[in-house]
């Protein structure tokens, strides 16, 4: 049964991710007083990328980008089939390392800067996510996604700090302003185009599909906090995504040192406090 969820993810996540991205562009446009592109625009874009001429700077970059896509899909499948959440986090890191290697391999100064910034982003994101996993373990006694999702406990109430901290760093992963420092979405520009500068045609298409997988995976993480009540969880996921869009459209991009520092402060202040309190009460109350 759980394996089935993983398989469903592999097939359905790109569709759902693409639709969500289309919705994102539509809603963002409305927030800016524009009509916006059609809902299916992300699919048109990706199809077009696959029809473009293949221009490759270094052949190895295609291998790395394919690695990024495959590992991202694998990570998500692991998550949705109820696997170990720590393994999920590290597999996700691995997939991003592939993307960074792909950008490095092109030897272009622009994608080099983008790759460096992607590493910085990972540095900013990782502590909070690992803390979140630790908090979930403290609360439920298991690192398995299936156990965490199946627990009857109201995780969002036990881990409010971790939830807030997670929402804070989520902007890094969704490549949203104010934290879209390595590469940005839509028509925003970032040192030419950051980490994707040298990726063209089908390679770029693969990067986009991997990002759709990632989007669904990230929303899955948010879902976990509300796992005890699926209807509530779906509402919470929708709200969280909407919140990211509002923030994306209201704040300019931050400089990277501040972005990293603030994410660590958020992780430390919100996450650590939450984990410490939980740990203190872990024996008696929960």
């Amino acid at each position, binding site marked *: 049964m759980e394996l089935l969820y993983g398989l469903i993810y592999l097939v359905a996540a790109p569709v759902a991710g693409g639709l969500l991205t289309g919705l994102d*562009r539509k809603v963002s446009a409305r927030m800016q007083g*524009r009509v916006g592109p059609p809902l299916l*625009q992300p699919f*048109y874009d990706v199809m*077009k990328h696959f029809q473009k*001429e293949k221009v490759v700077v270094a052949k190895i970059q295609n291998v790395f980008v394919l690695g990024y896509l495959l590992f991202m899909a694998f990570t998500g499948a692991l998550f949705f089939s109820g696997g170990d959440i720590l393994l999920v986090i590290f597999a996700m890191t691995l997939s991003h390392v592939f993307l960074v290697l792909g950008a490095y391999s092109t030897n272009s100064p622009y994608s080099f800067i983008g790759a460096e910034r992607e590493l910085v982003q990972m540095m900013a994101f990782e502590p909070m996510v690992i803390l979140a996993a630790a908090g979930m373990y403290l609360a439920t006694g298991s690192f398995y996604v299936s156990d965490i999702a199946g627990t009857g406990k109201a995780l969002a109430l036990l881990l409010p700090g971790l939830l807030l901290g997670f929402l804070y760093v989520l902007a890094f992963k969704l490549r949203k302003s104010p934290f879209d420092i390595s590469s940005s979405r839509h028509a925003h520009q970032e040192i030419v185009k950051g980490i994707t500068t*040298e990726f063209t045609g089908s390679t*770029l298409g693969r990067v986009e599909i991997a990002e759709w997988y990632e989007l669904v995976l990230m929303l899955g993480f948010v879902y976990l906090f509300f796992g005890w009540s699926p209807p509530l969880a779906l509402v919470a996921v929708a709200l969280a995504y909407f919140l990211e869009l509002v923030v994306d459209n209201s704040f300019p991009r931050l400089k990277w040192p501040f972005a990293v520092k603030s994410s660590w402060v958020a992780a430390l202040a919100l996450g650590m406090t939450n984990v410490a309190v939980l740990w203190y009460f872990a024996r008696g109350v929960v």
Partner: protein
Amino acid sequence: MSYFKKSPWIIHYDGSSCNGCDIEVLACLTPMYDVERFGIVNTGNPKHADIFVITGSVNEQNIEVVKNIYHQMPNPKVVVAVGICATSGGVFRECYNVMGGVDKVLPVDVYVPGCAARPEAIIDGIVKAIGILEKKRKEMDEKG
């Protein structure tokens, strides 16, 4: 089925324009005209772009830049010269450093005259360019 019609991405380069045409190009992105309705994205990266929009004439200094951007764009690609400067050199034609219109260096597909070219005219030019993009795509397919 070809998707270029639905998702033409643009790179905009300012040759030696007086900035008049640039403002009009950017006006196309505003809520008033919102070209993203048609899936048009103003990317800053030639490697992601399908349509090369140039404003202003080509001069001795930017000729290499213009060629470089053009050659970095993967096929199929089209060039749109926006404004009378990009079309022929316009009022700057006689300047000692100006070479003339963009077609002195690149194969221009669509000319959008006007000083400055109106956003409506620019959008019209882009739509024409999309048609040519489709045609080029077909030729690419036939060649294999």
